[in-house]
């Protein structure tokens, strides 16, 4: 028993050790040094002008050159993309990729840890590289995602966690998490409390109702708890700075919060209602925390505040129905256009693995309701990259960036567009997946007797 216990613990301890030494979780992986040239393509670089007939050269996993008159290097594998279009791969900013396989089967779900305060849990720890969701998702043109623990949903006990852990940015291919990793700790999840007068008790399956004053008290209690955690982290950080850490017991939860209180790690703060968003913004300002809003169903009500404080938003899918029955039926569909006009930065996200492939659809729907097309395209590529501090690595087609690209036969946001080639870290990556395999298998089923 003890042996098993130890062997189970060991990898965790090693991982912790690496965390403490601030050693990057994944050292740069060696990439195949093959050179690829995509030729005769219409290239949407999203950095400057679109090139009508151009060449992208990929070397060592990076974009080496892009332009109308770029030379094809000798020995390069050439992909003739005549009639096709090249875009940066899409980035789904909120998923549970690799953390949740089958929603109803708890054994396959690792996205929601028990308890409210788990700032030290990290998505990358539990991302399964063999998840069937990964190839299914990338076939739709998504090359990287954020795997987010406790991302807005509830666990089976009705708890969604408060400080839910750290989100990891991952490429959608790789034999191991080390090969997949783009940024181990990209944000700290905070599910902002809500004032709830009506709640659902999952133990008895009944609705409970309480007076507003009581609900508000509970809300304030939770906010105080969060404040307390941050205060403790602040004291802990001060102790560390004074070099006296040895005098204290190590606290890995507080340690995880140190980059947050130092403003190095942003909060990915889930809130949908205007009142909660306002409170959260005020809170983060007071606490000097970097905030990325997630959800934001009523972000339009606080757009001036969000712009003034330059808080970016990861928007809940635009197809979501409005919160209130007397909201305009297209409330979430018109919101992106409204936010863009107000100068609020935002990105689209699926919020759900099973619907990750609807990312483009959601962006396109926002265009149908007034968002400029270019903004929609950026909101699934360079904008999410920028929001999570990855824009120097991905999001556009520029020399030096990681070669996460898609080659399509049309608008990547449109429902009927096919992804013909997909490059992740410069590697031509298969678009085959569970769904395609099952399709081919049953397409070839002999006629039943």
């Amino acid at each position, binding site marked *: 028993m003890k042996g098993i216990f130890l062997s189970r613990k060991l990898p965790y301890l090693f991982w912790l050790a690496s965390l403490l030494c601030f050693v990057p979780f994944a050292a740069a992986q060696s990439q195949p040094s093959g050179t690829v040239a995509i030729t005769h393509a219409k290239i949407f670089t999203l950095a400057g002008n679109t090139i009508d007939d151009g060449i992208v050269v990929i070397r060592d996993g990076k974009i080496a050159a892009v332009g109308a008159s770029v030379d094809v290097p000798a020995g390069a594998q050439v992909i003739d993309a005549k009639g096709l279009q090249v875009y940066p791969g899409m980035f789904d900013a909120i998923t*549970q990729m690799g953390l949740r*396989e*089958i*929603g*109803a*089967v*708890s054994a396959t779900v690792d*996205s929601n840890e028990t308890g409210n305060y788990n700032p030290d849990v990290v998505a990358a720890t539990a991302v399964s590289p063999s998840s*069937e969701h990964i190839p299914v998702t990338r076939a739709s043109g998504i090359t990287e995602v954020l795997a987010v623990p406790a*991302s*807005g*949903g*509830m*666990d*089976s006990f009705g708890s*969604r966690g408060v400080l839910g852990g750290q989100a990891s940015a991952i490429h959608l291919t790789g034999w191991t998490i080390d090969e997949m990793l783009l940024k181990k700790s990209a944000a700290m999840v905070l599910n902002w409390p809500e*004032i709830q*007068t*009506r709640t*659902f008790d999952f*133990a008895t*399956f009944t*609705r409970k109702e309480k*007076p*507003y004053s009581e609900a508000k008290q509970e809300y304030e209690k939770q906010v105080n708890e969060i404040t307390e955690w941050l205060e403790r982290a602040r004291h802990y950080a001060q102790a560390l700075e004074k070099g006296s850490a040895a005098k204290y017991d190590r606290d890995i939860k507080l340690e995880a919060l140190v980059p947050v209180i130092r403003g190095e790690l942003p909060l990915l703060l889930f809130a*949908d*209602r205007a*009142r909660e968003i306002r409170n959260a913004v005020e809170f983060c300002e007071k606490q000097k925390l970097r905030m990325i809003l997630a*959800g934001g*169903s009523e972000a339009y009500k606080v757009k001036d505040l969000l712009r003034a404080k330059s808080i970016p938003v990861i928007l809940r*899918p635009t*197809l*979501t*129905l409005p919160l*209130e*029955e*007397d909201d*305009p*039926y*297209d409330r979430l569909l018109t919101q992106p256009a409204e936010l863009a006009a107000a100068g609020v930065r935002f990105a689209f996200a*699926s*919020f*759900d*693995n*099973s*619907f990750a*492939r*609807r990312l483009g659809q959601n962006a*396109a*729907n926002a265009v*149908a*309701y007034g968002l400029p097309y270019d903004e929609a395209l950026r909101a699934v590529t360079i904008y999410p990259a920028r929001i999570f501090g990855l824009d120097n690595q991905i999001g556009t087609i520029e020399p030096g960036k990681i070669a996460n690209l898609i080659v399509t036969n049309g608008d990547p946001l*449109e*429902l*009927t*567009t096919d992804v013909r080639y997909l490059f992740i870290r410069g590697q031509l990556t298969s678009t085959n997946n569970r769904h395609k395999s*099952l*399709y081919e298998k*049953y397409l070839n*089923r002999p006629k039943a007797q």
Partner: protein
Amino acid sequence: MRGATMMRTIAGLAITFCAGVAPHALNAANPPGAPSVILIQNATVLTVSHGTIEHGSILIKDGKIAEVGQSIKAPQDAQVIDAAGQFVMPGIIDCHSHIAVDGSVNEGSVSVSSMANIAEVLDSDDIDIYRDLAGGVTAANILHGSANAIGGQTVVIKLRWGQPSAKLPFEGALPGIKFALGENPKRSNFSLPGQPKRYPATRMGVEETIRGAFTEARDYRKAWDDYNKRVSAGGKNLIPPRRDLKLDPLVEVLEGKRYVHAHCYREDEILMLLRVAKEFGFKVRTFQHVLEGYKVADELAAAGVGASTFSDWWAYKVEAYDAIPYNAALMTRRGVNVSINSDDAEEATHLNQEAAKSMKFGGLSYDEALKLVTLNPAIQLGIDKRVGSIDVGKDADLVIYNHDPLSAYAVVQKTVIDGRVYFDRQRDIAQRPERENEKKALLEKEKKSTEKKPDAKKPEEKKPEEKKPEEKPKPPALVASTGGAL
């Protein structure tokens, strides 16, 4: 979607007292002076039954399509809708919906709940009727939930927003009954600590439950047949069999007077129900969801049953793990009549887009894709003589888009039912300030009344969302314990 329904549930559980100034109050859905003659002209007309007419016109008289063609001269009394640059298609028919239901869709206490009838609890005030109407839906099959092997009775409605509940049912449409196979009726994902398991808890038990019920129904029918025979033979002082409200609808199934809409996922349970149906001599009208239908497409085609599925939902539970977005196309290719349904008020707002995906996944043609949400569900619900295509004599149930509807960029401009404009995007937008003001005034009034009586009870809060579409993969989590019609 996303967070769609669950978000709303959560939202509904929270705060907000709202005055509920839905478009309802002001919507001139059924203006008394509505013209009975309407001409839609200059549109790209997607007839579904006979191709596309560029710069086409549709003449509507007394709620029916009177003429379809290239150019129709406007009768003198006609209201003319100039749809230049726009697309007209038949109203979308959603073969699996749970909107417009007052309260829960599931009588989940028993394994056979055929005595319960969704038609008795239609709620014409449900805002989802309006939202789906704004998504181009004109008719929907309103189903009981999937908690039972044999569930409740179902009803087809038209989305006549603003009309009383009694005016919603689709006149003459055959009623149905919901069956359910697999994880939901065996309550795989719904067990609660301390709660005894309900029979059935296996797929074997689900089959047995259905066979058991039909065995009873057959005997019951025979008892009535015998009684009626004796009555017609002049028998006197006969005692009729005892009326059984649970078995009456099953007898109607046996007599072909009520359609069976069977919720299912796995290939084996699909074939199971086909065997049971054969044994008792009834027909399954549609398999609903039928996410593994592609595995037994030949068998479905041979049985002549319809298949109504999702576009691309998957992995929310084990029986949805082999779900593929090619399902609709694969079944169509093997000769099955296929439709794409919503099962969810939000999903229903973009069924045109969901149908379009079948062109990408499996290569259906443009017209085949269109049929998935128009003519095919009409056939499945037995209402294709009335709706589902743009043909002379059919009901004028139409939807006008500003763009090709099989695209993510199309927005519904008008939805027409029985020749009446029930949804008009411009009208909706124009009325928003007025609704906003009305809401403000109501809130003000409410505030004043509470200020006067400081001890008064708090104002009525928004009632929490109670309906739960049965599958509900969206949004994350929660599925484990509640992801479905409870």
